[in-house]
């Protein structure tokens, strides 16, 4: 099994997972938790919940967000978060695989966009990039 949960990464990260599918939220949460105790996670089932969380004063270093969600989708939520001045790293995780589908999502204000599935390698890439830029 994965190594010690003490901490695989040095920096502390506060991460928000936004996806309407409970199974996906569960998987992404477990993937992030596997990086150790320095990663704190919270989940939201759609873009509106994510926006409300940020509006309530919660800060997240990284937001992993799906594109297709009911009530408020990833594009709308990302745009809204940027309008609110949210400076978090926002990473789109989507099943979309064409440029036409991904472009509006990226243009809404993403820092990165990956095709599903989310993997440890993709998460590690984001942690390292953010730590380097942060």
């Amino acid at each position: 099994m994965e190594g010690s949960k003490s901490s695989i990464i040095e920096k502390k990260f506060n991460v928000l997972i936004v996806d309407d599918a409970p199974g996906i939220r569960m998987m992404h949460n477990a993937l992030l938790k596997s990086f150790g105790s320095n990663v704190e996670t919270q989940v939201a089932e759609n873009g509106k919940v994510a926006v409300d969380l940020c509006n309530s004063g919660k800060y997240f270093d990284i937001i992993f967000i799906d594109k297709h969600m009911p009530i408020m989708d990833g594009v709308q939520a990302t745009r809204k978060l940027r309008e609110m001045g949210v400076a978090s790293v926002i990473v789109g995780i989507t099943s979309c695989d064409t440029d036409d589908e991904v472009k509006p999502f990226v243009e809404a204000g993403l820092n990165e966009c990956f095709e599903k599935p989310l993997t440890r390698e993709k998460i590690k890439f984001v942690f390292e990039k953010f730590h380097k830029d942060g």
Partner: protein
Amino acid sequence: MSGFHGHSQPPAMAVLDQLLRQYVEYMESLRRESILDDQFTQLQKLQDESNPDFIDEVITLFFQDSERLICSMGTALAKRNVDYKQVDDDVHQLKGSSSSIGAARVKNLCVFFRDCCEAKNLEKCYRCLQEVQQECVLLKNKLNTLFMLQKQIVAAGGSIPVD
């Protein structure tokens, strides 16, 4: 394996050995047939003492979701004015969830299914729906066999090998 008083392994060890071999071969066959890919192995690594039912819960949620989506696709395709956008949205969701659990064949079918939705080809969409249903049933059966083997290994005193 070391001998037992110079003779062959005690029966219990031999049973465990056989189960482990069966399990490894079965996993290899699932990968060879693209029923599961490496993403499933990555998820297996996330299961531990603090999260002992992780895989079971994830797979249960996947099948609940896939059944709902397949039903929704069928309803959308059966409409007089077929709502291809709705079908496509459902297929898109199934593509995402199947890729996330490592269900490679289901995911690949969804890619083709989306092309059929874009082309608004009703006949092909229906065929895709049928194939997706069949693949999900196959996946469920294969996973049930896998989990049964895992239970037998644990009952025999072993632990599940993960690559």
